[in-house]
C-alpha cells in the first residue's frame, strides 16, 4: 500500500519537482504534501529546499508544519533533508541576521568564508567520513552538485557522514538514527545522486 509512497514536503520551494522526478525515475511513487495531517501520516519523508532558511522556516510555520516535522523526526521515521532541509535541522542560522530553526541538532548555520565565489555553485567532492547504507555503490570522493552560501556547523561531529572542502571543510552529509541529510542536491547529481535516493529508500524500508 503506502509503503512505496515517498512523501515530499511542499512548502513552496522551487526544486521539489526535480526531487519528485528523481523518486519517480527510481520506480517509487512520490507524494507531494503540504498539510500537517499528511506529514504525520507519512512513513518515509523527504524535506527538499532551496533559497533562504528564514523563508523556509516562515513557510513551514505558516503551513503549521513545524510541529509535525519535529514529531516525525522524534518518532525516528526515515527522513531525508536536502540542502535547506539539512540546514534547518540546526538551532539557527546566521543568514539574514539570526533566525531560529528546528533545533533538532545543536549547532549553527554559518556563512561560507569570504574570498571565494559565493554561492558555492557546481560539482564538488564528498569525502565519506563513516560507512553508511546511504553510500552504498557511491564511490568515496564522488562529485555532487552544490548550490548554497551557508553551511551547517554541528557541535556533535559524529553527525558528519560526509565532508566537502570549499575554503574550509564543512559537513555536506549527515546521518543520525533513521535520518540523513545532504547539503548537495542528489536530484541534480546524476547517477550517484539517484543512487543515494535509491539507498535512502532501501534504508527506510529496512528501518525499524
Amino acid at each position, binding site marked *: 500500500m503506502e509503503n512505496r509512497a515517498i512523501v515530499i514536503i511542499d512548502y513552496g520551494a522551487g526544486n521539489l519537482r526535480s526531487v519528485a522526478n528523481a523518486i519517480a525515475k527510481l520506480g517509487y511513487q512520490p507524494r507531494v504534501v503540504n498539510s500537517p495531517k499528511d506529514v504525520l501520516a507519512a512513513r518515509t519523508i523527504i524535506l527538499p529546499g532551496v533559497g533562504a532558511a528564514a523563508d523556509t522556516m516562515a513557510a513551514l510555520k505558516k503551513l503549521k508544519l513545524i510541529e509535525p516535522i519535529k514529531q516525525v523526526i522524534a518518532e525516528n521515521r526515515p527522513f531525508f533533508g536536502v540542502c535547506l532541509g539539512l540546514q534547518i535541522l540546526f538551532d539557527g542560522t546566521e543568514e539574514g541576521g539570526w533566525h531560529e530553526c528546528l533545533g533538532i541538532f545543536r549547532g549553527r548555520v554559518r556563512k561560507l568564508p569570504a574570498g571565494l*565565489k559565493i554561492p558555492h555553485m557546481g560539482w564538488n567532492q564528498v569525502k565519506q567520513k563513516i560507512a553508511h547504507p546511504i553510500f552504498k555503490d557511491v564511490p568515496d570522493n564522488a562529485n555532487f552538485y552544490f548550490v548554497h552560501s551557508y553551511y551547517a556547523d554541528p557541535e556533535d561531529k559524529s553527525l558528519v557522514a560526509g565532508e566537502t572542502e570549499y575554503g574550509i571543510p564543512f559537513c555536506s552529509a549527515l546521518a543520525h538514527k533513521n535520518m540523513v541529510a545532504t547539503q548537495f542536491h542528489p536530484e541534480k*547529481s*546524476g547517477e550517484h545522486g539517484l543512487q543515494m535516493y535509491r539507498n535512502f529508500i532501501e534504508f527506510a524500508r529496512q528501518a525499524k
Partner: protein
Amino acid sequence: MLTKRIIPCLDVKDGRVVKGTSFVQLRDAGDPVELAAYYYRQGADELVFLDISATPEGRDTLVDIVERISKEVFMPLTVGGGLRTTADIRRMLNAGADKISINTAAVLTPNLITGGAEKFGSQCIVVAIDAARVANDSKPRWEVYTHSGQKPTGLDAVFWAKRAVKLGAGEILLTSIDADGHRAGYDIELTRAISEAVTVPVIASGGAGNLEDLYEALVDGKADAVLAASIFHYGMYSIRETKEYLAKRGIPVRL
C-alpha cells in the same frame, strides 16, 4: 575542490534545437529532449536552454520541453529567452528548471532581478550579459547590448555586472558579442574583468573554437564555468575528451 563546469548551450526555436545536427548517434538531434539526455550521459555539468523563438507559442513549447527533460535528466538546467516577469520565472522553475536567465528584461526592469531573487532565491537568478568592446578607448571597456545583441544600452559591462549582483543575481552568464560565432577564443580580458569585479560565479560564453580556448577562459579569464555550443553540437569535441584535456592541464573537472 570545486570543479570547473562545462556547459553545452542549446538554442531552441519553436521546440527544435537549431545549430548542430551532426550527431550520428541520435535518431533526432533536433529534439531537445534527446539531445539533453545525450549530453547528460556524456557527463556535461549543466545545460543551458535559450529560447530564440521569442514568441508566446515558443515559450509554451519550451515549458513542455523542460518538463520532459527534467523527468530524464538529473543535472542542473538553466532556461532563458523572453522571460519578463516573476510569473514567467515561476513557470519555468515549476516546470523543472533550476535557474532562469534574464538579459534584456533585466536591463529594462532591474527590479525583476530583485523580485526573482526575493521570491525564488538568488541561486536561481542568472543575469546574462551580452557585451561588445568599445573601440578606440585608451582603457579596455565593454558596452552592454540587449535584444539579442542588437541594441546598445550605453551601460558599462563591469558596472552592470556589479549592479546585477547587488540586485540579487546569483550568477553571471557573460557573452562576448565580438567573439561569439567566430570560434577564435573567448574575450579573455572581458571575462577576467567581470570575474574579478563580482563575487558570484561567472560563465564565459562566445567564441570557443578549440579546447585551448576553454582552458584560457578558465585560467586567464578566471571563469568558473565555460559555455559552448557549436564545438559540442557539431561533434568537434565530446564532453568527455574536453574534460580529459582540461584535467591533463591541471583544471579540476568532474570526470
